[in-house]
């Protein structure tokens, strides 16, 4: 923890604690303490002025209430010295508040040079955190005690990334990159818990990460978690494991994880309920009406196309709101999603392992890797996803 010296003054006496209400959430970043200190100083100033103004008001109400025998007194109608004083003195106070706010802000806007970079892609209605290795997670994992810089972009509308525990916030604007940095101080998870957290979205033990710029229907569900690892070494270890874990599971299991992680769940149910998008249950192989053109069979081609170019063919009865995952999803992941959707239809045979599924699409084999040939992004698309109507997906952008 990094308590600022002034904060101690306000450590405990807040009356709200008596009602079991925390004034702030826990401060878990280096900047948080500074923000809180200024907050409490402003609060103190406000309480002084509030007591002064409302106190005087109540005194006047009691003392000068009209009643028999009480007569108003003529007092002077103005007093320039007094009025100048109560204009200038609060003026100094506000200059002070401004100055400390300004200093804190400079700190919030100036990331250190050695900051660890993570790319953030915001879309309706989920977050994708792209680590330098190319691995994408729906929760933000960071090491403790190391400055982290987020380079953020939006695929569709305005979003805003807000981590209350860190007291940081920045809008994510389509068409430009915005930056945010923080240094987390308090780890949230043990290593094993962090690995498990990968399978769930929002329900793990970590700091809340909200979207605070209204972005439409799923705005209030656009929540992720910030998981702070104990050390940079633990974080690196997690990153390596997280990146390979997908190959340990079956294609269907990976598909289900992706459904949870990559924001599919926000709009597509797997129990038949209609959401913003069609439910995946029983949908594979059926023929569906489109908003434009002829009905299309929901097959591998259609699913793949819907992931990469969602606006091309929109199911009748639904709004075209799905963002494109082009460049943000690996071939293996598309294949896994297709297997998962297939598994939701009775009677569809699904493979238990990647070998049964015919290998991991887009993944270089051991021999190829040894020969140093066939880079991943030029690998042949999977059998389930013929390339005739869509270009091979690019690998996720590697952070510098």
């Amino acid at each position, binding site marked *: 923890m990094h308590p600022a010296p002034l904060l101690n003054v306000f450590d405990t006496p807040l009356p709200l604690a008596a009602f079991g*209400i925390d004034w702030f*959430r826990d401060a878990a970043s280096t*900047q948080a303490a500074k*923000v809180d200190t*200024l*907050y409490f100083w402003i609060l103190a100033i*406000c309480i002084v*002025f509030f007591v002064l103004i409302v106190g005087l*008001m109540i005194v*006047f*109400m009691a003392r*000068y209430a*009209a*009643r028999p*025998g*009480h*007569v*108003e*007194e*003529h*007092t*002077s*109608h*103005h*007093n320039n010295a007094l*009025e100048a004083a109560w*204009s200038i003195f*609060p003026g100094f106070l*506000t200059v002070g*508040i*401004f100055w*400390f*706010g*300004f200093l804190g*802000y400079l700190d919030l806007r100036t990331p250190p040079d050695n900051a660890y970079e993570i790319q953030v892609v915001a879309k309706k209605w989920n977050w994708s955190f792209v680590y330098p290795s190319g691995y994408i997670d729906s929760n933000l994992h960071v090491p403790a005690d190391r400055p982290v810089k987020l380079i953020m972009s939006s695929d*569709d*509308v*305005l979003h*805003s990334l*807000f981590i*209350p*525990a860190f*007291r*940081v*916030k920045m*809008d994510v*604007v*389509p*068409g430009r990159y915005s930056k945010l940095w923080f240094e987390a101080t308090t780890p949230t998870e043990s290593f094993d818990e962090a690995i498990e957290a990968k399978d769930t979205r929002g329900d793990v033990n970590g700091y*809340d990460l*909200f*979207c605070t*710029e*209204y*972005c*439409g229907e*799923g*705005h*209030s*569900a656009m929540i992720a978690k910030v998981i702070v690892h104990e050390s940079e070494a633990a974080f690196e270890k997690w990153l390596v494991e997280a990146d390979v874990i997908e190959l340990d599971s079956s294609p269907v299991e990976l598909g289900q994880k992706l459904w949870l992680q990559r924001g599919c769940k926000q709009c597509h149910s797997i129990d038949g309920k209609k959401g913003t998008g069609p439910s995946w249950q029983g949908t594979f192989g059926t023929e569906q009406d489109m908003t434009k053109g002829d009905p299309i069979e929901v097959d591998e081609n259609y699913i793949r196309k819907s992931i990469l170019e969602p606006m091309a063919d929109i199911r009748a009865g639904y709004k075209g709101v799905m963002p494109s995952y082009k460049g943000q999803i690996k071939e293996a992941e598309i294949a896994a999603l297709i297997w998962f959707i297939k598994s939701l239809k009775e009677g569809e045979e699904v493979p238990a392992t990647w070998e049964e599924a015919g290998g991991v699409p887009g993944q270089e084999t051991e021999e190829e890797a040894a020969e140093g040939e066939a880079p991943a992004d030029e690998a042949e698309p999977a059998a389930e996803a013929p390339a005739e109507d869509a270009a091979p997906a690019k690998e996720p952008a590697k952070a510098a």
Partner: protein
Amino acid sequence: MISQSRQHTLLEAIGEDPSRKVHIPQGPSYLTNPPGTTFWQAVGSWMFTLDHKRIGVMYLCGVMFAFLLGGIYAGLVRVELWNGTPGFLGESLQQAQNNYNQAFTLHGAIMTFLFIIPSIPAALGNIFLPMMLGAKDVAFPRMNLASFYLWCTGAVFFVATLLTSGLDTGWTFYTPYSTTTSTSVILATLGVFILGFSSIFTGLNFVVTVNTMRPKGMTWFKMPLFLWGIYSTAIIQVLATPVLAITLVLLVCERTLGIGIFDPAKGGDPVLFQHFFWFYSHPAVYIMILPGMAVISEVIPVYSRKHIFGYTFIAYSSVAIALLGFLVWGHHMFTSTESALAAVIFSALTFTVSIPSAIKVFNWLTTMYKGAIHFNAAMCYALAFMFLFTIGGLTGLFLGALSVDIHLHDTYFVVAHFHYVMMGGTLIAFLAGLHHWWPKMFGVMYNEFWARIACLLVFVGFNLTFFPQFILGTQGMPRRYAAYKEEFQFLHQLSTTGYFVLGTGLFLAAAVLIISLFKGKKAPDNPWGAATLEWKCCSPPTHHNFEVQPWTGSPYVYDDFVYDPDAEGYVEVLPDLQRDAKPAEAPAAPATT
């Protein structure tokens, strides 16, 4: 009202000579039509009236209807938020979210554009601005009627929005969401566009009226402060509203033609929209609050029986707020990727606005000093205003401070702050003004006791609704969330409970006023002993307000008004020549009694 002993002293002092009391000629009231008018003639006489008071009353009915509608949407929002999981507005999360988004959008848009902006200037201002000038009407009566019908047309567009696919952009219409959502954005923006014209017409009319129609003897610095407030507001309306109109036209073009001014794919910039939007909408905050402050500046001296303290500072502070209000729009965008330099400049400028606001509060407080404070309903609302506006103003300091704003921006802290200022400020001031001027507008007295109970309920309900939201925001609860985490539930439930208390208070206040129309005692011409000119005509006024130009004295000297038990109101004693020769300001030294 006034103490018995003082009444006697004063009545003795004037020798109870009726010839020395000012005689106010009575005539047919503006509310009635000549005998023999048929129903449709009567309807026509209202529809096509050029009488500023009738237009004001029609505005009053209109904005009250809008307020009811906006209030119902607020209720939907609050009830949905009783639980952190959606349920009230739809069974599935999707349904509930969709309906919730529409509810808060329509609540915000209706309250802002249809209620708060026109409430005091268009309803109370229309009725009392000419009367305070001792004039028969505003400068352009036909334009005044046109502005009312423009308001109605704009309101129809909003109602059409409700009946079609709704609106879910938030009242701010931020791009690119507003250019892509499938809801009725075009209908709503056209509505706002038309309402903007209504606002400009009203503002223009008021500027010209105040500039050209002040009576002899009423110099700028002898004008009642209500006029200063309305005048400053009118200047903002005329200068800022066109920017909103242009912005919305661009938004509609963007949606229909895809011109790309806000679309990054075409070289546009979504943040540009925010700059345009707040360049209007921040000054609009002062369109909302300045008239409220102006009402309070009238109410407090009357019920304290004291000359307003620091008249010139209050007058100048209105102008200062109006001018500085144009320079601070960027403080809505500290987290919008605006440059750090811009953020710092806007933060610094923002603090300058706090000073003139603080000056007003200190002056109102000092006005009460050594007065004789009458706790009439209007004064109770004014005191509630001071309490709420103090909280609203002080919490602005948190949001002006850059680093703290980063944490609080777009959380419930902001929601609480602007409700304290806009609702706690404007609505409460509007209620204060409504109670203060009700006897003049409709010639009846309402039940003081129940009006004060209503005021108490409104005050308690208001704080219960919005104070918990400061804490919610500090804890990090974002705005515009249909569902939330369990730990926020207790505070949300307090807030929803507050909504019902507040709603009960408002319905009670409405009931008290409406019942008074049918059962109220006839109002005297000057029930509160106020000194501004509107009290120098009969209650309710005649069509032309004044038979002769009233004598213009100081609007805040109450010595000439003595309580007359027969009239159950105050009567004016003609000033003698000696007082007439005195300077407008009383001597600086406090008089001893």
